[in-house]
């Protein structure tokens, strides 16, 4: 007897019942026709077969710049601020807006212009900083939004807000929502994968940022790490060969089959399917992580850092490989953007880390025809103040957290290429026109994936929760 004798199909009704998806009988009946999808998808099936709307994108690559990159040194060109460097921030601009406790007690708030130059790039003429020469080359692929704003002013709640739509811990992450809504398109990999740049940690990252919250836990993000055990517990114990494990699983499956024959509980078969999926992941994940098969030309594109496992560049390359295998949500974190002091040095280093790889990722996806169906998002949890935190000198300054306005960019996935949206005032302190809230960004991204943000809900503790809470607007102006 081999495991192929075993009926791996699961009873969908019991599946939903057991796994707390909370569907009632009628819903199950309506889903009955999707039996095959359920059987194939197992635990990684989504709740909506194909979304609510026609999808422009099939997946997201989210390049999260954690710590809060300064918009004023990257995408928001403010010549007036440069001219006024050193002057105190006028009250007429600040309008009593709250500051963090880091600079609220500062005796003066001297405005600080960027020490880095800006130039217009591409046919679209987008203003981009000299710190981002590679990104500038793909200016015509970017949809730059300069008018993002958020509600949180400190890292932890602000990142949590961006990733889960709520400042309060415990809600499902963006990627979990997507996995829940659309399921996985890959049988050997999870729908939601997280990659974190090594060595750049300043502000902590928390597993709740890729947590499933109250969604079933198969939707939690799975961190792929560098090193020998890229997914937790992926590797067989020392001394257990692949052959040994295969045989072990075969015998276990036989035992489970006997158990199933005796008890008739479809849950038993579901568990066997999980063990098989786990076994496949033991091959598929290291395969994905192994970049040695990539041709020289790829490394030429991503730059030498791509050979350094755990670097942002290597993770971008991995992101492309995951995208090729249809992973739904690929979340990268690149920490290190929290420049309260020594900003010019710090941000130069950070831009060097991400500039070429971001360019390469866009270019690579484009060459492979994947950019159209992949939505790339680049940005942090908030922006930075237009005044210096701490001392301002000709060459040095710091910037505090600033939730009132900041810049992000998107590319691919049906957003307008070579397009800039939203402006800030001449001081770079307030939004002048076309504000985009965090929930708007989330609604827009979901929309591109064919999901209506006000219909992607899950009931917990008596309330229908959404990624966008009770807010959010699809920013149609950004869509191609």
């Amino acid at each position: 007897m081999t495991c192929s004798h075993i009926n791996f199909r699961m009873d969908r009704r019991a599946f939903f019942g057991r796994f707390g998806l909370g569907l009632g009988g009628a819903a199950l009946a309506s889903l009955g026709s999707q039996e095959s999808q359920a059987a194939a998808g197992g635990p990684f099936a989504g709740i909506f077969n194909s979304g609510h709307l026609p999808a422009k994108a099939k997946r997201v690559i989210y390049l999260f710049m954690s710590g809060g990159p300064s918009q004023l040194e990257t995408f928001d060109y403010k010549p007036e601020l440069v001219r006024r460097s050193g002057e105190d921030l006028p009250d007429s601009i600040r309008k009593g807006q709250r500051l963090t406790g880091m600079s609220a007690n500062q005796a003066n708030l001297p405005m600080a212009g960027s020490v880095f130059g800006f130039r217009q790039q591409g046919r679209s003429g987008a203003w981009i900083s000299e710190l981002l020469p590679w990104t500038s080359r793909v200016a015509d692929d970017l949809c730059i939004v300069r008018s993002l704003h958020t509600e949180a002013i400190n890292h932890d709640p602000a990142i949590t807000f961006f990733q889960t739509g709520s400042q309060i811990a415990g809600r499902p992450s963006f990627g979990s929502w997507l996995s829940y809504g659309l399921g996985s398109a890959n049988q050997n990999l999870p729908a939601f994968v997280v990659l974190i740049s090594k060595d750049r940690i300043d502000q902590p990252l928390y597993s709740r940022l890729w947590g499933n919250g109250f969604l079933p836990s198969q939707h939690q993000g799975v961190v792929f790490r560098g090193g020998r055990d890229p997914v937790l517990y992926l590797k067989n114990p020392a001394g257990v060969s692949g052959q040994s494990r295969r045989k072990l699983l075969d015998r276990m499956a036989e035992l489970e089959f006997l158990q199933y024959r005796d008890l008739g509980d479809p849950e038993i078969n579901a568990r066997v399917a999980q063990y098989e999926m786990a076994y496949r992941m033991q091959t598929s994940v290291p395969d994905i992580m192994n970049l040695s098969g990539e041709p020289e030309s790829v490394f030429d594109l991503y730059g030498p850092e791509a050979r350094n496992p755990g670097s942002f560049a290597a993770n971008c390359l991995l992101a492309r490989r995951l995208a090729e295998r249809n992973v739904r949500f690929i979340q990268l974190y690149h920490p290190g953007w929290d420049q309260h002091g020594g900003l010019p040095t710090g941000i130069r280093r950070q831009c060097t880390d991400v500039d070429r790889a971001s360019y390469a990722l866009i270019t690579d996806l484009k060459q492979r025809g994947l950019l159209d169906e992949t939505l790339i998002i680049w940005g942090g949890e908030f922006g930075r103040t237009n005044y210096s935190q701490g001392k301002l000198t000709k060459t040095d300054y710091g910037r505090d957290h600033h939730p009132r306005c900041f810049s992000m960019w998107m590319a691919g996935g049906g957003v307008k290429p070579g397009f800039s949206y939203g402006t800030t005032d001449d001081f770079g302190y307030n939004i002048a026109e076309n504000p985009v809230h965090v929930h708007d960004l989330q609604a827009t991204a979901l929309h591109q994936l064919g999901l209506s943000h006000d219909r992607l809900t899950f009931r917990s503790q008596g309330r229908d929760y959404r990624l966008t809470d009770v807010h959010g607007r699809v920013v149609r102006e950004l869509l191609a």
Partner: protein
Amino acid sequence: MLSKIKTIGFILLLGPALSVGFAGIDFARQIQPILSETCYQCHGPSDTSRKGGLRLDTREGAHGSGKSGRLAITPGNLSASELIRRITTSDADDHMPPADSHKSLTTGQIDLLRRWVAEGGKWGVHWSFSPPSLPAIPKVRSLRKNHPIDAFVAASLAGFKKKLTQNADPKRLLRRVSFDLTGLPPTVNELASFEANPTPENYLESVKRLMASPRYGEHMAVGWLDLARFADTHGFQTDRYRPVWPWRDWVIGAFNQQLSFDQFVVWQLAGDLFPNPSKEQRLATTFNRLHLQNEEGGIVEEEYRVAYNVDRVNTFGTAFLGVTFECARCHDHKYDPISQREFYQLFSFFQNVDESGQSVYFGDIMPVPTTLLSSAEQDTKLAELQQRISAQEIEVKRIATNAQTEFATWRSTNTTGATLAKPVAAFTFDSMVSNIFPSSTAGKVAKPIDNPSSVDGYSGKALSLNGENGVSMPGIGHFTRADPFSLALWIQPAVHTLRQTVIHHSQAWMDAGSRGYEIVLEEGRVAVGLHHMWPGNSLKIQSIDGLPLHTWSHVAFAYDGSSRAQGLTLFINGLPVPVKILRDHLWKDITYGQPDLTVGLRMRDFGFKGGKVDELQVFDSALTAVEAARFAKVPPPSVAETELAHFIARDYPPYTTALATLRKLRQEQNGLVTSIQDIMVMEEMDEPKPAYILKRGAYDAPGERVSMNTPAAMGTLSPSAPRNRLGLARWLLEPSNPLFARVTVNRVWQHFFGRGLVETSDNFGLQGALPTHPELLDWLAVTFAQGNPELRIRPWNLQDLQRLIVTSDTYCQTSRASKSDLADDPMNLKLGRGPTRRLTAEMLRDQALFTSGLLIEKIGGPSVKPYQPDGLWEMASGGRYDTGKGGDLYRRSLYTYWKRTIPPPSMMSFDAADRSYCVVRRQSTSTPLQALALLNDTQIVEASRHLANRILKEGGATPTQQLRSGFQWITGRPPKPSETVILKQLLAEQESLFEGDTASADLLLKVGEKSTDGVHPSTKLAAWTLVAEALLNHDEAVMLR
């Protein structure tokens, strides 16, 4: 769309069950859920989101009319009922619910609504908001035994022409009840003895044995830790450790000692409010402080103080009332009858603790207020010290009053005048020598920070400050709270603001809980503070009058080392001034490290912007009034009393000797008390903090003021009840409270059946599920609250209730289901068979440790760090995870260190609750990551090896016997012959693989810290290790059937 589907599901599944015993349409169970789901978002309790002026959540509203003027419901008359017209019209503009709501009604629901209106549109209260009464136990023939639970369940099954099924076989039953009561499997002997004679009497004996085991309390604690959002760390940003495990140990003890459940809850909510509360009663209130706490630099303190208190309200609501209050933080609840005002009325019960919204970044300080976790021995020592201190205080006073004669003699003979205290450091700030200001005392200096300017001062030159500069004076002023000390200086403010720090000895403001001492100006008033952690462990006074601007004022304080506000005197321009006592509750030390005494600025604080400072003096004694006057250059008050006091302090050796003794005693007391760990608790402030409705829930948008009260829909708070947490806690226990007992028994039911009688154990509100067995739920609730002597159930006795449940046939039934059973009732809502569940994260790990003999059974203590994959904490910059050693690796899982931002990964894979907020219901999922963890986790691999070793040692002589033993130890039953065949093949295959590669066998046997003592060839033990692993992964091991 999803939500629509869900409602239909419930109606379809529950409809028949609910119709039992009801002739007509039942509003509360059949109609209100439809209205709530489909209509209340716009026509519910919320005034602000109501459309068309129509509300359908009250009788008056539904029987009235909205803006249209047409009656929503005309009883008995469908055509005159606007509601019916609107849900059936084909006019898209008029149709309800509107398309953009993404809600819709099924034909079944429309039919129900029509029938309801036709029958007269009878109104009622949502079922869970009317108090339960004791239903009669149904008379059911054919029960195997006379058991009230079975009677209710069988009566309901009879409605489907079904019956309770046969009992589970004894082995499965004992395994089920052992896990449910202790979280661990039965031993082979226990199984054998029960199987030999599986009578109801023996079963009851087993239940009693399990409940008497200390493992019982450990296992019961697990669910309570979820509910209480217990964790070992604060949960934000750097996510620091906070030792709150003593509370966890109290919970375990409370279960084991059978503290009755009402007391268990009241102590946790309000133990501090009992008259003369015991230490345990205080400790129990840690429950309310287990929410996340934020130490991130630069947060707005009030924002988080409010967030913490909101969490207390939410936890209270979910845990004890099964109602989600969260929505009402920002607006009236859209579905449940909870107004925003009522939310803040509850809020006001919980906020009267002297806490800070920012926990401490610098130093491991327990957030205030706290209670001391002293041992009995330490208490004795502390009491003794306190007694000696009090006695010495009296002695010091006695010596002072007896000094009259000596004073007269001294005054008549003394020619040089009174001796003045000598400063330990004194700075004129007149000139710098090699970039530092010298002190008149040797070896001390003041270092300028960011160039304070030098301007004409009170005398010579003075420092002129800009708020971000000043001077620091290393090595000066390291005083404890037991030391008398004083500061004196001239200052000149240029502007009055909320806060300006003049001088301090501390590391930072909020970020360090202000620990240290300070002089600050608060809108010009002089405040002097000594802090362990502001505000709950502090001493602070503030002058009534402000200082003049642009004028030199001499400010001095004298502190006598008593830790009392009375012992702190503020002098302005040489005279003692009246002060307001802001805090008088300092009982741990004010020192840590040795920060520099600093003038003019402090980390993340408001500096002395525009201020000037001159002639600073630091003293290691309490200045006298004479001295304060002298330093302020005013004539000393010539009152004899003042002179006498000065004489005693400076020129009367018996007094100074007695004072030195007192100081020594205080230092000893301070040293001891500061060294003892404390824990955050509730401690009601004398004056409640004013509470307001916070508009949109925003911390900085207070609206109308509110006072403590309970939500009107949930039973009234007796006017004679105290308006505090104790009154609130006792309100839960009132028979008129419709929710508490129901919610509690439902959670207990859930513990044993995997699903509550109300599936949404976290929500009994209008959006929650309906009870599958409403009469049973109410019977259990009333019986639990009031007891039942006939059934030997004491009021609020958890074990009595649990014993009742586990002795029912409903619980003891086999879980085996035929295809048609599964098709008929896949989720077993009718309870026609026994419960099936996957083991929890804790049970799975504990089972492996227990059956392998590795488990270290030690109750309580600090949390431990068993194996976890390398680098997890480091990756997220959460510090370093130092894996425990020896016994720490093998403790029960509830003792595993819980770091909120990076919780133990193997536990999280198996659906452990997020310990960030109150969770009363875990998920149970099945994922590949679980398979990976249960096959590859070092903990499991090591346990498998030890299990293999045990099998080989104790499991019998032949492989067949050994396989039989191992299988039975883990699953509770012997293998069938067909299973033995497969297991033998497994063993043979693995053995032959390892024989071909002995190095691999050796590697496998090295996994885990603890070596095995066996004498078996490594290839054999390795193969058996994998057999053991297969057994631990077997359905029968992973599931409770």
